[in-house]
């Protein structure tokens, strides 16, 4: 029988990898943002899992960190979407392939 902490850690590692693969493989900036969000939330799953099942269960620090990081992630995604709109105004697409003016 797998322990709940281990199950949570496996879940969060999977989420993190899926998010990273999304950021690396996708060409659409909105889908890349979703990837970043998945990676951040994988860490939140970790915090909650360690708070609930870990060796130091019950200390509120884990929940606090999760709440703060949700707020930070929300701010980050708001900025990200604003940047997507900024790019869209210039090149009329959300694909990152069209935004490669600088090289070298």
């Amino acid at each position, binding site marked *: 029988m797998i322990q709940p902490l281990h199950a949570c850690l496996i879940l969060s590692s999977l989420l993190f990898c899926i998010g990273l693969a999304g*950021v690396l493989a996708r060409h659409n900036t909105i889908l890349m943002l979703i990837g970043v969000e998945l*990676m951040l939330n994988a860490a*939140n799953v970790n915090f909650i899992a*360690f708070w609930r099942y870990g060796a130091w269960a019950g200390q509120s620090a884990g929940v606090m960190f999760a709440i703060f990081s949700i707020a930070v992630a929300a701010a980050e995604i708001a*900025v990200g979407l604003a*940047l997507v709109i900024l790019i869209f105004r210039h090149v009329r697409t959300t694909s990152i392939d069209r935004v490669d003016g600088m090289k*070298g």
Partner: protein
Amino acid sequence: MNYGDLLRAFSAETLLVLFAGVIAFADGWLARKGRAEQLRHQIASGLLLLACAGAGWSLVRVTPPCMLPDGMIVSTDVGIHLKGVILVLLSFTGLIAAGTVRTHHIGEFYILLILSAIGMFVMLSTENLLMAFVALELASIALYILAGFDKKDVRSAEAAMKYFLFGGVAAAFLLFGLSLVYGLTGSLDVRVVGRSLSHMPASPLLLTATVMVMAGFAFKIAAAPFHLWAPDAYEGAPVSVAAFVASASKVAGFALFVKLLTVGFPGTFLTRNGLWDAPSWMSLAVLLSVFSMIWGNVAALKQKSVKRLLAYSAVAHAGYMLIGVLAAPKLGSNALLYYAVTYALATVGAFGAVAAVEKSCGSDKLDAFAGLMRRSPFLAICMAAFILSLAGIPPLAGFFGKFYLFAAILKMDGSSLCRFWLAGLALATSCVSLYYYLQILKQVFVVEKEDADTIGLDTPLRWVLGLAAAGVLAAGLFPEALLRVL
């Protein structure tokens, strides 16, 4: 501790926030009156200077030594001095921006600069993982927006997007690593984390956490191979923003980085059988340093855009500074901080010079600097001071910075870090870097240009260049004065 003490401890940050509000109201009022943008720039940057002066005064006079529980805020003398450095860099950035940023949202620009500086302030005074993460994000998110501030230029948008995506992934890596550290130790206080990790045998979880935290930091300080955002962000962003990213965020980032690593992570992990030392953050830092020194210096050789060249040289300098991070657990971090501060001064000045040239020629390519000595002697001499300091030529500050760093790594005992190889590689790559730095100076002093028109400098920019050059020279002539306070 009561709320009055808390307010006094945060007086500098509070003053900065208050001035951000004042800038918002003043600029909004002027915009509604339909005043000229130049006037709005002057008033907003004047208020920014006033804010910096007020915050500096409160750092000196009001702030008491302060300790909050869990290491949330731990104010130290070094932290306060570095906050002063951030304030200087912030005011320089504001003055560069006053003449160069093209935007209708003038107040917002300066407000975001101030918010980013507040994030850096908290980075400098916290020893708590949660506060460190939130402060790092406060500083970074404001910088993402600032990088995209030139809405008419598609390159600015591209720079902001790349900076944002890399920064977001870095934040996720760092957060995931911190969550594992929390799971292993049950605490967010860096000192408690350090105490429990040093008694803990190396486990896969601990190594994963170390690697992820290091990867997150390497993104933030633009160490190779995680530096890919830096050249594009420096080239596309408004020059003043690039100056702030290259200088202030480097100083604050390295100060936080070295604090977390030396206090929170032991230099070597125990293994279960105790027979060998498990690799820890030190081996990773050696790898990052070697990659950055080689990659940064070699890639800078073929750059034609001076901003890109400075970006790759920033990668190389991150490599040198990582050597200082390696030496910090044994010998203290003042060699690293001296290097970071003097590097920041030289960089902010160099970007200021690029801003002046770009404003008059519309280009930051190497040949735009041709005949600069004839076109503006003051600008040319200041540029020479910055570039020679970056290259590490005595008597400028960059030379002593490199000297202290390399001496620090050689002073360390133990051969496990291949310290001789590291110091030798650093020396060799600094010689390589002379080529591209002198390439700029060749354009400035040797190459002639026929239709050379003089470059007019506006007064704020002239002050920034003069003060930064004087600072670089003074820090090189009297290095002890700066080393003593760091």
